[in-house]
């Protein structure tokens, strides 16, 4: 074939999408572009997660509101009335609820996403798609519950604002605008931890047994029922190594502003840094283990 006809035939043919399949070695690329190509699958799996969550329940989506409210009531009775923990002058119920918002998002992600690969083993062993989609969809599924709980938060804040003698006055501060940013931080933290747990759970089912225990322990080292001002000043940055500490403090700061305490800037910075380290290392670990998921699950 002459040069001219060869190049002509090259032009005629549409460029084929070429896939090379070979054993991968080393760390490998993160290949996040693949995740973008499969964005519709992320959407559908998130949607499935939300859609089936409260199916065949009498109260349905009301559970998304009831659960955090009941939790808050119990904590208020237990930690405020009985244990008498302080809440920096903010009514304890909203002080606690502000922390429950990101905490519940995180705890749910830990439990759902941690088990997600094993729960969806059918998909993992039968169809190709970037495996990251599965824990990501599980984490995102929690956002709807978060939104419901957030409406409750607005209601509670209004109630305490107008209730005489509550000692709480709502002040619109620019800090409120940073809330979406902190929601993102909460999601990234949850996603990072979920990556580690879900990948580990494929290899070691022990993870499923550790999860409830881990969640409980993590709950107590996060300032949900108490304020981080209870921690001695010099230990606070150490305390912020728990990435959820920064998230919770940031939420309180955004919602209550100066009334809660001074801006928790350094703590949030430390927590965010830890969250990013967990996320990036989690991504690499997940991608590395991904190649054996279908064989080991």
């Amino acid at each position, binding site marked *: 074939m002459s040069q001219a006809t060869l190049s002509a*035939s090259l032009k005629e*043919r549409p460029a*084929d*999408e*070429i*896939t*090379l*399949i*070979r*054993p*991968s070695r080393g760390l490998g690329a993160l290949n996040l572009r693949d995740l973008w190509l499969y964005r*519709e*699958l992320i*959407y*559908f*799996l998130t*949607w*499935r997660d939300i*859609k*089936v969550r409260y*199916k*065949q329940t009498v109260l349905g989506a009301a559970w998304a509101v009831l659960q955090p409210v009941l939790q808050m009531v119990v904590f208020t009775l237990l930690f405020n009335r009985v244990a008498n923990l302080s809440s920096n002058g903010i009514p304890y119920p909203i002080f606690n609820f502000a922390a429950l918002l990101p905490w519940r998002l995180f705890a749910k992600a830990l439990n759902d996403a941690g088990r997600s690969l094993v729960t*969806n083993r*059918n*998909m*993992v*062993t*039968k*169809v*190709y*798609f970037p495996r990251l989609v599965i824990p990501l969809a599980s984490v995102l599924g929690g956002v709807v519950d978060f939104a419901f709980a957030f409406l409750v938060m607005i209601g509670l804040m209004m109630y305490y604002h107008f209730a005489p003698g509550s000692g709480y006055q709502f002040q619109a501060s620019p800090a409120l605008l940073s809330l979406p940013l902190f929601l993102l931080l909460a999601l990234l933290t949850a996603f990072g931890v979920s990556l580690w747990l879900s990948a580990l759970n494929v*290899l*070691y*089912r*022990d993870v499923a047994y550790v999860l409830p225990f881990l969640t409980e322990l993590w709950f107590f080292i996060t300032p949900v029922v108490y304020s981080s001002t209870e921690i001695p000043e010099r230990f606070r940055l150490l305390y912020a190594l728990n990435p959820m500490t920064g998230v919770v403090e940031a939420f309180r700061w955004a919602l209550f502003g100066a009334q809660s305490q001074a801006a928790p800037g350094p703590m949030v910075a430390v927590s965010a840094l830890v969250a990013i380290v967990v996320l990036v290392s989690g991504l690499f670990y997940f991608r590395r283990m991904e*190649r*054996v998921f*279908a*064989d*080991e*699950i």
Partner: protein
Amino acid sequence: MPTSYDVAIRVENLGKKFHIGVSPQDSPLRGNTGSYRTLRDEVSEAYQRLRKGRHALVAQKNTIWALRDVSFDVRKGQVLGIIGRNGAGKSTLLKILSRVTEPTEGYAEIRGRIGALLEVGTGFHPELTGRENIYLNGAILGMKRAEIAQKFDEIVAFSEVERFIETPVKRYSSGMYLRLAFAVAAHLEPEILVVDEVLAVGDAEFQRKCIGKMSDVAQQGRTVLFVSHNMSAILRLTEECLVLDQGRLALRAATNQAVDYYMAAGFSNAGERVWSAAEVPADAAPFKPLALRVRDAAGRVVDTLRSTEAFNVEFEYELQQDITGLRVGFYVLTLRGEYVFTSFDTDEISRFDGFSTRKAGRYCSRCVIPANMLNDGRYVLAVNASTFRIRRYFQDEHALGFYVDGTGAPGKQWPETRLGPLRPALDWEIQNLS
């Protein structure tokens, strides 16, 4: 002259090694590994490694090559069949090509968008409606939302579940569920389609429809890799086949030749089930099953039989004590678990009297299944050894599977699926009454 542009799939020296779990029964060849590691195993293994320093040796022993040194190309637009008995590596090959799992060695190059159907209904959620599951399953298979929306009516029509499209699929019958699942899968339109045994599901009528759909796909000039145990489907849909045996490529030939080779040549392990001591429950004693075999008319142990020839089923066992009133027999079941028939070695009254007490020792109970009895398809043999209403010594519901190939059977001139598990050759008489 074929240039590299005409090649849709090129596979070079592809190999896949599996680690077998703790027990050899958990071989990946029996579907998924039933075993998974726990931290405890890992820790104790690490300790063993430290102590003995022979990790390499142990690892060698616990691995198995499910696929090795497999090389072939597939031309664009070719429909290539892949046949081989269970555990030959067919599914492993498809899983590697569809990127579900990685090869251990070698490589494959795929030109064009590939879509794989290793199972129908992946990701179906019982609580979601038919409509919702179509979208979900479509997305899982790699279709875009717009594409699914565009084909939605066609999918629903194909599945024949229009009336129940807003009903959660948990309320569907298993037939409806499968029809819907296959309908979504059948509307996947990649340039290269990889299909594993998905046609073996559903009732005969639906299978016929599925094979029809597959042959449409094949005629549209798409590249298809098709794995099946259904030789009629293979013969109908493909012109060329790969035969895999024990993870290696045994033959690539025109379909007729490949099917003959597959059915005749030395697949000596197939068609036989041997019970190891560990597989026999302790309460079976004094009855001890040894082996169950299916032999073709020529006496060879095979896993695919021709429906036009008689074949033998033989059950070998040992009695550690005398047993009175023992009957040993088997059931033939379809893959969907329906009983086709049951037979015991002492069914006939004279034999029942003659063998009222069987002395301790080794026995073989053998019977002939006449020609022209079973229809095409896969069947399962279940065995039973018992004394009527007194005691069941041993039962294995899934002792051995075998295939029946209906090539040359009555009515084969019509390429349709015959309903029912039986395909008898009956004496018809056509009388002209005018």
